[in-house]
């Protein structure tokens, strides 16, 4: 019996959940960070495409909480735990992205947002007690990532280096 595998697209400043056999995918990560949180036994995963480190940067009255690392990840974890009745202490994370696309030596904080996103994601995951089991972060390359919730493999495609998995 063939079950159709869906590839669920995660847009910028968004997160989505998937259960095996479905895949999660986000394209064109630059300074943004793709965060996969995964429960191996239940084969349930969530993927967030985080754009900015901290919601304290928000100058909006109401903001999209999926945009910021410190608000997106707790929300995604809550939704995963509630929807699929998972144990919080069995969650693990894989992260990719956070590049610095333009090699800028100046003082613009905005252009350093990639590394700051990575730091913020790690801090937030630490606060949530979710270990990062593998990562492919930094550098100056764009990344497209696909997560297979069946086997827990995160595939990373870059223009310069081809396809790798973590």
């Amino acid at each position: 019996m063939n079950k159709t595998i869906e590839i669920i697209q995660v847009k910028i400043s968004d997160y989505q959940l998937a259960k095996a056999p479905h895949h999660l995918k986000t394209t064109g990560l630059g300074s943004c960070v793709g965060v996969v949180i995964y429960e191996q036994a239940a084969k349930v995963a969530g993927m967030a495409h985080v754009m900015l480190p901290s919601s304290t940067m928000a100058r909006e009255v109401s903001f999209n909480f999926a945009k910021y690392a410190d608000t997106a990840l707790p929300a995604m974890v809550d939704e995963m735990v509630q929807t699929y009745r998972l144990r919080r202490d069995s969650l693990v994370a894989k992260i990719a992205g956070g590049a610095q696309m333009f090699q800028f030596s100046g003082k613009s904080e905005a252009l350093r947002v990639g590394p700051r996103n990575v730091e913020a994601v790690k801090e937030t995951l630490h606060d949530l007690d979710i270990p990062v089991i593998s990562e492919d972060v930094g550098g100056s390359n764009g990344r497209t990532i696909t997560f297979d919730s069946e086997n827990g493999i995160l595939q990373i495609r870059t223009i310069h280096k081809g396809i790798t998995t973590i």
Partner: protein
Amino acid sequence: MITPEKLTDFHKDILKEIGNIGAGNAATALSQLMNRTIDMKVPSVKMALFHEVTELIGGDETVVAATFFRVTGDAPGNMFFILPLQEAVTYLRELTGDSEIEEESIFSSELAQSALQETGNILAGSYLSSFSDFTGLKLYPSVPFLSIDMAGAVLSQGLVELSQVSDYAILIDTELRGADNTQLGMDGHFLLLPDPDSFERIFHALGVT
């Protein structure tokens, strides 16, 4: 503060005029550089959700040669000159007379990358100086930064300022193309992304509230 959501059609017409004047001058500069006619499409001002921004260029994963400038001065913002990779190859072959240039070789060729940066530099300079003349605002481009990568990855870097106040970007987009577009392509995009606080300053400078 004028956020993208609050822009009126009148505001958009003004931004379009800025794109018109700026890109008109840039097209002239490019014509001189290449010694042939470059056409400019009527600029468009679009309000787009972030994930829609890259769709205008051809999609998140389209490989582009993007020259990025941080604009400082009275109305700071980000600026991109974007050529799809194949267009960049065509352009470089014509500019340098080197028909050996391939998509692959751009990544490793310092000459090719430097030529793209310098082209971006000339174009951004002429775009911004006419923008300055029109508005009386002082604007200074940074040195050019080049990235050849996925459109989504390079463009999202330019959305950092705007994303702190909105989920929308205001794009002043102008397409440049070779007049004889049957033969050689020169389909580039000029994108100007003013910082959130800059909209008000631009309108104020032009006596519009």
